[in-house]
């Protein structure tokens, strides 16, 4: 298929990244930082790392993703640390596994900061151009396509060895606001209309998803006195493990909380026939987790009010984001509807709410490395893979970028499994399950949540980032040392005997803790809900001086020891079959005893491990036993 005229060739590089959103930027940096010549294409240089929806990074489980990305050597955490205007650790009243960081971003600064980083990274070139065609040669022996380059809108060709597709919501995008339909990407940006057909011509299966965003309003038209103020945390915790917390403590701006009411709902109900979703104009599948206000009113008819968060879009703009009220109703209805909300009676809408529809792939065509099964050298990440959210996009971009680079370097791909990170859960869910809506991360999707905390992302993934060439020796050494200090202190506390003596009993009494009947260990005392590591310093004479991040880990490891051990055991079981690899050329039709349904599913998903196979719906435990036995004979016969 790649019939290239010499005169069309503009450049020969290693990797082309298509799209410069949150996925594209991470992918491009991962490749360029590995010394590969990289071009990143965008329809508009001004929209690099754009945040076309909510003005924040992080939140429940998404905060985990950013932490993990940072541990692996990604950029998002560092950028938000430089550009946030409010920061909050969510769920602090709950267990450490679900603490999650969220920061309001100054959108424009965020974009500029990411652009600055891209522009100052060696081996990386930004190119403003729409890519319209993928170029690849078919190789009969492997029945696969091999990437040779991409073609842009004017016929120019960039030859390359690998491509990472990060087209976000731009492919054949259309925006809907009531009866008004425009064929643009988010924020009125140019849609990309050529590439879908090219992808389809290689047999890539596409589907259509939709999402939406609320209106932006002029802050001067909002009466904040009728709303509840939402302030940031007193002590700001950074996203990045490389950011010094002392350097980012600053004055923060507020967000505001108000509510819809029956009047709002009445207007919505009366105009449902003008909503493109309810009128059947929208064909794409929307996400259930960020429903439009129309959806909320229809599905939860018994609720007489819904929360509305007013969030600033930046320091140098008057625009405010109206969280909780995304909509695709027509402009006149939007004005009426928003004006029923206390504080918004006189609101002036700067940008209307709209729904957006776009092409994305069915992600079951990808390996967990985010490589296309049918290609050598083709990778993809972000909303293009059927996910939703800046953070979900960024982590996929990072993994796709890392593995594109490793493909060129002829190294094995890096895959994070479900027991190692939310990134692993996200990607495994995408490539193994039948996803019918844009996929969003949630902590409940992780079965080993207690182990995958945001506070220990560095301990879990720094080493992998080092292997990926994105973490420096110094950063790597730091985490190795940290791990050592944690382990030493935990075992010291577990062995440290505390007698039921006068000093101990007085200490316990002073902290409203029951007196000891017999001697115990320091670790046992720490397990009492009312006591902490810090308090116990009083009766702990041998305590070494440790940094705050080490102490945090010691605290958690001891306090939740029982639960953590249980999950660790589960992980051991999980790893047993996760580590059983399935050869790429396996022919399931040869495995006679497999049930027909199992054969079909396994052929479709072509899992890389028995573990992945076991998570495919329609593959039973008995099928897995059969598969294990088959593989045993397969490998033995090969020897």
């Amino acid at each position, binding site marked *: 298929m790649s019939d290239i005229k010499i005169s069309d060739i503009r450049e020969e590089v290693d990797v082309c990244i298509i799209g410069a959103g949150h996925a594209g930027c991470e992918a491009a940096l991962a490749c360029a930082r590995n010394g590969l010549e990289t071009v990143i294409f965008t329809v508009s240089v001004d929209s690099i790392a754009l945040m076309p*929806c909510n003005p924040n990074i992080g939140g*429940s489980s998404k905060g985990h993703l950013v932490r993990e990305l940072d541990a692996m050597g990604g950029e998002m955490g560092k950028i938000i640390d430089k550009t946030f205007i409010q920061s909050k650790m969510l769920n602090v009243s709950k267990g450490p596994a679900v603490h999650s960081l969220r920061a309001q971003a100054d959108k424009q600064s965020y974009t500029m900061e990411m652009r600055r980083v891209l522009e100052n990274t060696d081996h990386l070139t930004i190119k403003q151009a729409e890519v319209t065609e993928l170029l690849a040669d078919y190789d009969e022996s492997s029945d696969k396509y091999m990437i040779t380059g991409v073609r842009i809108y004017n016929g120019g060709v960039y030859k390359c060895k690998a491509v990472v597709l990060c087209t976000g919501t731009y492919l054949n995008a259309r925006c809907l606001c009531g009866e008004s339909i425009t064929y643009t990407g988010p924020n009125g940006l140019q849609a990309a209309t050529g590439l879908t057909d090219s992808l389809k011509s290689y047999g890539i299966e596409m589907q259509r998803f939709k999402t939406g965003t609320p209106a932006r309003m002029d802050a001067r038209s909002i009466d904040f006195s009728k709303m509840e103020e939402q302030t940031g945390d007193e002590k700001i915790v950074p996203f990045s493990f490389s950011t010094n917390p002392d350097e980012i403590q600053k004055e923060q701006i507020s967000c505001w909380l108000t509510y819809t009411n029956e009047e709002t709902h009445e207007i919505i109900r009366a105009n449902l026939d003008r909503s493109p979703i309810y009128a059947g104009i929208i064909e794409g599948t929307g996400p259930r987790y960020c429903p439009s206000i129309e959806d909320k009113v229809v599905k939860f008819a018994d609720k007489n009010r819904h929360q509305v968060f007013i969030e600033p879009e930046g320091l140098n703009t008057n625009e405010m984001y109206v969280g909780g009220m995304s909509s695709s109703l027509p402009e006149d209805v939007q004005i009426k509807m928003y004006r029923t909300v206390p504080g918004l009676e006189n609101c002036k809408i700067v940008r209307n709410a709209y729904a957006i529809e776009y092409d994305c792939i069915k992600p079951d065509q990808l390996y967990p490395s985010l490589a296309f099964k049918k290609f050598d050298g083709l990778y993809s990440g972000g909303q293009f893979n059927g996910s939703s959210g800046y953070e979900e996009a960024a982590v996929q971009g990072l993994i796709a970028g890392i593995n594109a680079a490793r493909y060129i370097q002829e190294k094995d791909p890096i895959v994070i499994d479900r027991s190692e990170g939310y990134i692993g859960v996200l990607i495994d869910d995408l490539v193994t399950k039948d996803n019918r809506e844009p996929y969003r991360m949630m*902590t*409940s999707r992780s079965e080993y949540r207690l182990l995958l905390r945001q506070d220990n992302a560095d301990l879990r993934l720094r080493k992998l980032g080092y292997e990926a060439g994105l973490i420096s020796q110094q950063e790597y050494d730091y985490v190795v040392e940290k791990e050592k200090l944690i382990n030493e202190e935990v075992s010291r506390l577990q062995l440290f005997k505390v007698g039921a003596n006068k000093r101990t009993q007085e200490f316990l009494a002073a902290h409203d803790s029951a007196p000891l009947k017999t001697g115990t260990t320091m670790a046992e005392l720490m397990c009492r809900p009312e006591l902490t590591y810090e308090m116990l310093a009083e009766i702990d004479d041998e305590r070494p001086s440790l940094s705050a991040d080490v102490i945090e880990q010691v605290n958690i490891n001891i306090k939740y020891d029982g639960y953590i051990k249980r999950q660790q055991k*589960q992980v051991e079981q999980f790893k047993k079959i996760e580590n059983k690899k399935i050869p790429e050329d396996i022919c399931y039709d040869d*495995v*006679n*005893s497999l049930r027909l349904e199992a054969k079909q599913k396994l052929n479709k998903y072509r899992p890389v491990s028995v573990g992945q196979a076991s998570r495919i719906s329609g593959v039973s435990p*008995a099928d897995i*036993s059969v598969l294990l036995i088959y593989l045993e004979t397969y490998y033995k016969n090969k020897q």
Partner: protein
Amino acid sequence: MKSDTIAAVATALSNSGISIIRVSGEEAVNVVNSVFVSKSGKHILKNVKSHTIHYGFIYKNDEMIDEVMVSVMKAPKSFTMEDVVEINCHGGILVTKKILELVILQGARLAMPGEFTKRAFLNGRIDLTKAEAIMDLIEAKSDYALKSSAKQLKGVVYDKVKQLREKIIYEIAFIESAIDDPEHISLDGFYERLGQVTDEVLQEVDHLLEQSENGVLLKNGINTVIVGKPNAGKSSLLNRLVGEEKAIVTDVAGTTRDVLKETITLHGISLNLIDTAGIHETEDKVEKIGVDRAKDFAKDADLIVYVVDSSVPLDDSDDEIIDLIREKKTIVLLNKSDLSTVTDEVSISKKLAQGNKNICRMIKTSTKENVGIDEFEHTIKEMFFQGNISLEDEIYITNLRQKEYLYDTKNSLVLVKQSLADEMPEDFYSIDLMNAYTSLGLIIGEEVEDDLVQEIFSKFCMGK
């Protein structure tokens, strides 16, 4: 998390001779050691040599269950190449069951079909040429086990388990939505409510466990489906069997007007008799539903009684019936022997030649004159004792498996209560609640898939 040590009855579960309970895995010795007491009254197994056999007793707390011989084979010199302990007990279904259950309660897991052989193979004990046969065995047995387990549950038990699951998943979804969207959903007052719900569910699970002691979770008996064309004498057969002095165990009203169910006991064997609508081509909508249901029942039957009216010739409908029951153990009754014979064994055999290999017997009967019914009853008894139709093993194993899952559920709920008592943060409860939900799901043969995400989005309004 349970240790991955498995247990099962290695011999046929019957009232004869000696039974062997086999335990395999890392914890095998520990598990058996905790219930086995030597003649000198000690738990000795931890210190015995490999490949030795020991005389002693199995105890459940203070109650002596049986006098046994226990052999210990340590890895790798055993069938599975893991530590294996075999308990040779004095047979008898009751005793064997009790010992297996004890072993399960001590932390072994009930083996899945073919699992010992699978382990033996994966650990290199069996050579490669056997692989194919083992794979077939696993798939065939699992298919049967899967089909039998959920279906054998009594309707009320099934409904109860479903209801408990719904209760649990709602609470998990509540916790999870509050974690996911803390600014929209608050967990104020949740402690008290969850404590209450957990107690309620625990009580119900305990009740189910009590019932499982008596084996009443399951429909007992052999599903015996009577099929045939209309007017062949199916209903008269049922009436004959039920109406005489047979003990009617239960009297379940037909779930629909087209299917009638009766449970009877023949020579100590329970039969669930299911009388179906006559199978034939029909345009009548209501009748068609009956015919379709008859076909469904026939598919799930353990035993088919095919009633043929011997006074009329075979036709297309008979072809259809023969096709339907091809894979089934079947008794053919040549009914209406009091009338002149048009269809006999020979003509049936011809029809069947290309079809059913499972025909066990053909009997001439007259339900009207009560001819041949004794022979029919005797045949069933014979088939059962020869093992041609056997269900008791499966039923028992199913019951034990369900019981095991109920215990798992209970343990998880107890852990939830513990977390509540320890004032752990909310996200800790959902771990064990989810385990309870999963265990209950196994009882009714349902997987978890993405139930939770569904529940969160359908019950709680979240999002930006």
